[in-house]
């Protein structure tokens, strides 16, 4: 049975539709991210799952039991979930140990079990030596670990995270991404993770749901999402890409001034007279000083180049393509001057038709 099911879930605020009829299903133990720009409805969705916001349409079910519908909402305290908040919401009037043990005490567990489990989880998040401290005496990263421990220790049916790393500095953020994934591998708690940072989502998640303007655009594993984006929004939001309008014309695939053989897009070739939009990642195009000798090699000229340390970022203009320019990235060792003649080589497997 699916652990968590959102069915046709909607939320309106006045005339504004924050979440627009989304469907999402999580399996037991799965880690799913809601990824999107600010205002896309991801936090509203998360807060509906938590029970803080009632939906205006659709339902939320957990283990086959209805939790939320426009008519009835189980209050947050009876959902058996836990949550990590953007502000951490560590209670400043309690010590680290009291914060972490709070949920266990609410479950009326005997005090020695509260004590034991609190101690164990604090060791796991490497905070055991700070159990007696108050939150004001902790750094941001340490507060984050307390929030993690407090949420995990109660063994929630679903763990919800609301942009938990957005208040940390860059280095710490990177460290905590892996920490969150490590804890998930250890406890296998069904998790919904809200973020606007694609790297965060890709490191932590089994699957990512990309949201835009209240709708889910695509749900997929990170690899598929990057390599097989299905919409223009997803292709542009996850990583960088070139968009090319393709049209079949006299046996050739016309890409707006330059052309490739029509058969290269196995199975996706549009009918004559129709067009299709292709997403071509900058690193899927190879640059060479010599012609490749087949139809996939296209002459072009370097317009400008920027050195970014880990790679070169070139803007190139295919010959005869007019205004069309492409972003191409190469290895750091591959240097070209502006104006230089080069040959582009396309990889048909990495030219993805999108809706």
């Amino acid at each position, binding site marked *: 049975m699916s652990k968590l099911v959102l069915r046709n879930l909607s939320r309106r605020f006045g005339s504004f539709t924050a979440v627009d009829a989304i469907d999402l299903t999580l399996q037991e133990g799965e880690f799913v991210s809601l990824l999107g720009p600010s205002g896309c409805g991801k936090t509203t969705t998360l807060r509906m799952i938590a029970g803080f916001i009632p939906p205006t349409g659709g339902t939320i079910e957990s283990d086959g039991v209805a939790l939320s519908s426009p008519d009835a909402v189980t*209050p*947050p305290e009876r959902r058996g979930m836990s949550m990590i908040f*953007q502000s951490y*919401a560590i209670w400043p009037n309690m010590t680290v140990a009291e914060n972490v043990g*709070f949920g266990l005490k609410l479950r009326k567990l005997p005090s020695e079990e509260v004590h034991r489990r609190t101690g164990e989880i604090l060791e796991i998040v490497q905070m055991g030596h700070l159990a007696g401290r108050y939150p004001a005496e902790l750094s941001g990263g340490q507060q984050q670990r307390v929030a993690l421990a407090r949420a995990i220790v109660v063994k929630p049916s679903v763990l919800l995270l609301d942009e938990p790393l957005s208040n940390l500095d860059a280095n710490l953020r990177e460290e905590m991404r892996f920490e969150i994934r490590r804890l998930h591998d250890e406890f296998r708690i069904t998790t919904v993770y809200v973020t606007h940072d694609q790297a965060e989502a890709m490191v932590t998640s089994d699957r990512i749901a990309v949201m835009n303007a209240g709708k889910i655009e695509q749900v997929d594993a990170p690899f598929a999402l990057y390599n097989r984006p299905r919409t223009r929004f997803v292709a542009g939001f996850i990583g960088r890409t070139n968009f090319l309008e393709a049209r079949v014309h006299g046996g050739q695939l016309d890409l707006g001034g330059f052309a490739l053989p029509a058969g290269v897009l196995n199975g996706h070739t549009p009918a004559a007279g129709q067009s299709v939009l292709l997403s071509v990642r900058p690193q899927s195009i190879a640059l060479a000083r010599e012609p490749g000798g087949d139809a996939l090699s296209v002459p072009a000229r370097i317009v400008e180049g920027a050195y970014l340390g880990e790679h070169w970022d070139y803007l190139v203009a295919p010959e005869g393509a007019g205004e069309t320019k492409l972003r191409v990235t190469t290895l750091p060792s591959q240097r070209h001057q502006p104006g230089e003649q080069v040959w582009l080589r396309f990889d048909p497997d990495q030219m993805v038709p999108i809706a």
Partner: protein
Amino acid sequence: MLRRLSVIEPATLLWLLLVGALVVLVAWPVAELLVASFTAPRTGAWTLSNYAAAYGRARYVEALFNSLYLGAASAAICAVLAVPMAWACSRTDMPGRGFAWFTVLAAFIIPPYLGAVGWILLAGPNSGWINQAWVWLTGAEESLVNVYTFWGMAIVIALHSYPFIFIFTKSALDLVNSEMEDAANILGAGTWTTTLKITLPLVWPTILAGIILVFLETIALFGTPAIIGIPARINVVTTQLWQFFEHPVRAEVAAAYSMPLLLITAGLIGLQKLMLNRKGYVSQTGKGGERRMIKLGPWRWVLLAWCGFVCLLSVAAPMVALVQASFSRAWGRGFSLDNLTIKNYRYLLFEHDGAALAVVNTFVFSAAAATLAIFIALAIAYVVKRKLLPMGGALAFLCMAPFVIPGIVMAIGFYAAYAGPPLTLYGTAAMMILAFTARFLPIAYANGSAGVQMIHPEMEEAVRILGGGRLTAVKSVVIPLLKKALLGGWLLVFILATRELSAAIFLVGPETRTISVLLYDLSEEGNLEVLSALGGILLVITLVFVGTGMKLIGRDFMLRRGGE
């Protein structure tokens, strides 16, 4: 469906409870005040005759104008006293800024009518210290100063109201970015030009707001006009209202007579809010950039002398005179060992047939009112800020309404609503406690509202998602986090209630007299030594609780909230 009902029911109950409390404390007395002003006392018929009685005599109309003049005079004196002090403390390198701050704090916490008593001792005709010194120094026949005059009264009131303008002005000046002044300096303006053309105009709306507040405080004040104005035969609105309550009580005429006071207050508070909310002024510039203190050179000693002068007039001289008199057999004989006695205190505490009871009453009423006000205000603030119930805005409005109702008008409303049948609360402790609670509800609400605002809602959501209900969240997170703020609010209301006179004097019965009421009674008897001793007792109580508050909550806890 069952679950929904069980969720809604306690909320509805809470809503009804809060609405009920606000109706009893605010809405009903105000409604009764209005109704009473249009009701003929015996027949109960609708009438305008109360208004005719209230404004039919020149003497009554004159009292209204006296109040307005007095308010304007005292506000103007306050501005003269306070603005230079505030500027010196905020923007300059004047030495002794801490001393100036202490002066303002002391002037603020001393009950205003104690200052009036002190000034009677200092500037009473013939026997006052200043006049005795004048006669002794110059051999003159005539007294130099007389507190029993219009200006005497205006100055005494101003000497205890200027902290309002000081606090308003200083906090606005603290927000003026030094770069505003630097920009004028770099274009060639000197220090004085900059101060007069840039700095003061920037804070002018705030100063004006402070002046309005002092004006309103003055026209609503009962203690000082009663102690000084009645012997001087200067009639103002509040003392005239008091006369309507002398036998035979004409509460409905008093109700009609109080309407202009109510309207002026409500109107000016509205105006003040408008001025403070204007965008583009100081409140918008915020802090930023480095703050540079103006170097005054020799002028800094002039400003310090001014602060010392204000301290002498508002705190040192009247309090020394009061304390000296309280320990004297006859205060006019000055400082000497054979004049020293504690019999005034002994008499009050052990022999006087009402003083000990008055002290106990003061403590009980003040503590009960503070507890009630803080509890109700916190509940409403929480409900409003967390949007738990519909119509939260209306609850907040009712809660803040007493802010625009002068205490004396509130008291007449309470009298009209609860003195007679069916409740017949006149002269009971309940009447006093309810009136004090209503009077200080806005302060308690501002306090509670600021506190709830500080707590991130996620703090409570974290409790709920872990399995605790709303009540658990309030108990384990909200209350512990607000402990300090609530204690500060409680102490503030308690201190203000211990000195409350203008509402108490109208509602008091033989068994419910408080220190402030007794003090007024003693002032009519004219025994200044015993009067001073009672003042001394009130002063000690005030200092103990203010000291406790400063120790627990911070040095400025009264000024910060009192100035709001």
